[in-house]
């Protein structure tokens, strides 16, 4: 029995965060797990910050992860991982994509983007384990930049901590995409999985 397992996916509108949580949720239900979660849509998207929580377990009631109780934080983008630092604790694992998405406020000089070192240093103070990967590059190697979110999903499973079976999530990835692009997405998943598994070891 799983009591409580919390995942937070963070990113920017348009990066496929919602699709990742849909796939995770469906797969979890297929594996007979209880799932709760929530996300912010509407005004908050359109290039703004997006977070989606997926919580699995029999002692989960609310749709939000309590502060400090995130087991795995997935950052589709470094600064968005950092933005959600208060969900982390020493026992949390952070996986983030090093490819940055610079907001237009930086271009017009209204704000600054942190360096990767600053992001790592801050996250490292709170969380015990951080895995970084260039998911954009891996996605391109898989065949399409559009699979970046599936690379990150693969990386999430590469931690080998998830209560969801790999076969199940792959089944849902396969079913979610048209037959023509499904293999590219499966490849993206496998590549992400492998990179993360090696990093964990």
């Amino acid at each position, binding site marked *: 029995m799983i009591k409580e397992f919390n995942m937070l996916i963070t990113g*920017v*509108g348009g990066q496929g965060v919602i699709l990742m*949580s*849909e796939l995770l*949720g*469906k797969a*979890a*239900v297929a594996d007979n797990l*209880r*799932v*709760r*979660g*929530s*996300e*912010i*849509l*509407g*005004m*908050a*998207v*359109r*290039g*703004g*910050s997006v977070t989606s929580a*997926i919580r699995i377990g029999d*002692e*989960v*009631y*609310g*749709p*939000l992860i*309590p*502060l*400090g109780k995130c087991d795995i934080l997935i950052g589709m983008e470094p*600064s*968005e991982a*950092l*933005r959600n*630092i*208060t969900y982390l*604790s020493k026992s949390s694992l952070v996986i983030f994509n090093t490819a940055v998405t*610079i*907001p*237009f*406020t*930086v*271009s*017009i000089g*209204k*704000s*600054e*983007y*942190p360096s990767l070192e*600053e*992001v790592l240093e*801050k996250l490292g103070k*709170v969380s015990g384990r951080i895995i970084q990967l260039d998911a954009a590059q891996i996605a391109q190697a898989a065949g399409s*930049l559009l699979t970046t979110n599936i690379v990150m999903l693969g990386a999430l499973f590469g931690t080998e901590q998830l209560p969801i079976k790999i076969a199940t999530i792959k*089944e849902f990835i396969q*079913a979610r995409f048209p037959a023509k692009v499904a293999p590219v997405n499966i490849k993206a998943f496998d590549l992400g999985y492998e990179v993360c598994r090696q990093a964990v070891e």
Partner: protein
Amino acid sequence: MKELTISSDAPGERLFVLGNEAIARGAIEAGVQVAAAYPGTPSSEILETLASVAKELDMYVEWSTNEKVAFEVALAASICGIRAMASMKHVGVNVAHDPLMTASYIGAKGGLVLLSADDPWAWSSQNEQDSRYIAEQGYIPVLEPSSVQEAKDMMADAFKLSEQFRHLFMVRSVTRIGHARSDIVLGEISKERRKGQFTKDRTWLVYTPREARINKPLMLERFEEIKKAANTLPYNQLKLADGAKLGIIACGLSYSYTLEAVKWLGIEDRVSILKIGTPHPLPEELVIRLLNSVKEILVVEELDPFVELHVKAIAGEANIPVRIHGKDLVPRIGELSTGKVTQAIAQLTKSKPPVDFAELDRLVQETAPLLPWRPPALCAGCPHRASFYAIKTASKRVARDYGKDIEPVYPGDIGCYALAYNPPLEAVDTTVCMGGSFGIANGLAHVINAPIVAHLGDSTFFHAGIPPLINAVYNKANITMVILDNSATAMTGFQPHPGTGYTAMGEETVQLKPEDIARACGVKFVEVVDPLDLKKATEAIEKAIRFDGPAVIVSRRLCTMIEQREKRKRKEKVIPYYIDQDKCSPKCNACIELLGCPAIIKQGVKTIIDSSLCTGCGVCAQVCPYKAIIEEKA
């Protein structure tokens, strides 16, 4: 893999859904036959879901022009004995307020349910009003779910309760219900389909003072019956712990946070909990039993102290000496969370908090300076960006003639275009409510001396823009009204509206043109422009502002998100623009500072276009003083 869907008649099976899909499923299980709504976050997916299965399940589903009409459509069906619902966001309930207050006198024949989707923290709204007060004002009972599963169950039951008590019911959802995801256990789908029958009954349906006086006491009787029944409805549950000093009354979603909080603090056995699923009316007997069993009470609810005030009234009336806490410990602003509820309970029970919340606050403050500001923005290629550029250029030209320091004023409205309040466009001076742009402009015209250029979208125009447009004509307000017509209700997810030529159920219908309506309403200056032609659009808007009397500009260009989608379908290639670095002056930045397009970015000193984002709208090429922005060769 056999996949279940929202319309599968598979009782007992589990399905992973969005909260709003669960709400729709509840209505489907109840055999709802008529559903009407106006889109608004966080409620839109409810009607979208119903529309997607309407034909298959023999339902009538419509996007109405606004929430008032939506509610009246549902009310009419109920009067004819059919199960009906209207769904809307919290501020939409304000629009429906007028019929609502008399509908409660009418009650219901066919089950009638109003779904209000409240938005604590105003994630996608102009305020965080608590719709339970509106319900109270109209003697409308409220069901408030604690989870996605319960949202589905309550929705299904609401229709039955409405028929049982012959009264209108409200289901109050919040963002973290409607936009939560969860597995739900499906129930059976009612296959009953009734035939609508209108029975003439003046005393019941024609509200002159006589009928108001006849029906109000009947309504109060119905409400009293519901009040008694609240004590035995399964949504209210009292769990007394032996020797507990603290009792927690948790309403709706707050119940889920409370369960997690007491577990986190390890005090499950030491507190009594009353779960509230009907904040209005409260289960008085259960409340009194709890009040009598403990020394202190904590009321946990989101937004205003609605339950708290009623619990205090019950305690006063019953003369129970118990200390009642609520908004002194639980925030009145924003959403609640397990953390916030835990802090409140820890303070009251003097328990050690499971995490150092002060440390977390420090961490937030420490991290904040490092984070880039990432507000939502108009999409690359959004035609609104071009419209705003033209509006600003034209109004500034005219403003100079008004006087040296005169600034044009831009009353704005509800929709994607509200995002233009951010730099660098900064072209929105007021945003209040649907249609408020034209209304505010009407008032400004009589009190200030400056060009007044108001804007709203096409869907908003049909919703609430026409009465203030007529008002401007009638009362001779010298204003310019720009309708940003992107043929979409874009912000809420591209729902069809009277200007799109098709209905919620996908049927073709007449396509109304805002310019025809403006002309018919007596506006003497009406022009249609393509915003992507900046020069022509700017000239037309300048003429409109200089026109003596109300003027209308329809700035028409399809929403870029729909256009890109259609291009992909047609297998048409997007031809992006690029910046010729030999011609570009690195210090100029005009394209960035004038437009703020997410596709134009700085790479060191260089300005470049991200070709993966560029839609090829060509607006930046028109503003570049060096002619350095060029279309790539196809």
